């Protein structure tokens, strides 16, 4: 013990907040070798303590998927996601649903994209593609073009007009697809397939023909 402060009380203060000592505790530490040693030891622990608490979250992904939340909560999360996507925000909630589901969710939340029939100007389309860092050519009229946040990247969300109606095309330069994967989700169906260094998603209304356009749409990816 040294001074008016008892060692055990000084150590509570040190152990409680080792990096911020009151004047009284600091004075005690300055004159008590044992408490000074305790302070040094405690400070030395802090770096590793912080490192231990900062869990390596990538390890979470090594684990099998746990049972997930109830559908109602997914629906609620999706509605919030919509708000965030509309606001230009990022995809926050993980684990994410399957890619096809994410694409459909995205399309569902921009229903107006299929209501536009006037082609966007080449300049506007070029601006969207440039913002996404993507090169894409198509012979179909593009009636909707928006740079949308998707999986943490900006992707071009396009709608092209075909003889069978509008098709949504999302050029996912940052998403690798092993092979073509068709999907059907509620009122939508489509396909995700490799294109260029990434992939492309084509979405149509349920029952709408799209197969005949897929290859041409894919070839547009540069």
């Amino acid at each position, binding site marked *: 013990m040294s001074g008016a402060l008892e*060692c*055990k*009380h000084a*150590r*509570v*203060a*040190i*152990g*409680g*907040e*080792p990096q*911020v000592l009151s004047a009284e505790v600091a004075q005690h530490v300055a004159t008590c070798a044992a408490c000074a040693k*305790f302070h040094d*030891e*405690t400070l*030395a*622990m*802090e770096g*590793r*303590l*912080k*490192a*231990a*608490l*900062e*869990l*390596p*979250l990538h*390890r*979470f992904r*090594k*684990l*099998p998927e*746990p*049972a997930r*939340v109830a559908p109602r*909560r997914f629906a*609620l*999360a999706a509605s*919030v996601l919509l*708000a*965030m996507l*509309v*606001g*230009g*925000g*990022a995809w*926050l*909630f*993980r*684990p994410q649903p399957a890619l096809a589901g994410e694409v459909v969710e995205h399309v569902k939340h*921009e229903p107006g994209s299929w209501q536009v029939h006037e082609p966007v100007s080449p300049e506007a389309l070029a601006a969207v593609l440039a913002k996404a860092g993507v090169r894409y050519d198509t012979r179909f009229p593009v009636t909707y073009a*928006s740079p*949308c946040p998707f999986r943490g990247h900006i992707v071009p*969300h396009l709608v092209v007009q075909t003889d069978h109606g509008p098709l949504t095309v999302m050029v996912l330069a940052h998403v690798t697809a092993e092979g073509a994967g068709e999907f059907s989700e509620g009122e939508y169906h489509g396909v995700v397939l490799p294109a260029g260094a990434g992939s492309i998603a084509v979405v149509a209304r349920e029952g709408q023909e799209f197969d005949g356009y897929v290859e041409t749409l894919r070839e547009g990816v540069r």
Partner: protein
Amino acid sequence: MNPSPRGNTATSAFARLLETLRPDLVRFAFWLARDRAVAEDVVQETLIRAWKSREEIKDPAATRPWLLTIVRREHARLYERKRLPTVDLADAEAQGDPALLASDSSDGEAGLDDLRRAILQLPDEYREPLVLQVLGGMTTAEIGEQLGLTQSAVLTRLFRARNRLRVIYGLAPTEDVE
């Protein structure tokens, strides 16, 4: 997709902020729940609530403690609603958490996993203020406010938490206080 520019800017900024803070929220939730699946659920609920209440936040600097508060509430709410059993550490490891706690060279330092196990074994009342302080960057006064404790009680709990962890560093625990 043409929201008003001002609203869009604020909304995007808030979304980016949430994305930045999300990893620490998951970590905090994990240390509370000691279960990664529960932690993910808690954070998902937290982000939903935060998003709905984003107008309440005027000062971006206040977002982090505000979110930590929501995580705590959601964690408590989840346990209350689902009546989840408290997590037994052995069970948690059997369910897959060893992968989280297994040796990983990316940690750069051997022994962190032992420390993590020791932290998991701390009583909730010691672990939570420790995480709020070290991970959340809160002062003892702020922790006291969060947990409804006096600053003195917070200091004591933090001291006891660190005192129990000393053995992991090969150090003898020091005398406790009444």
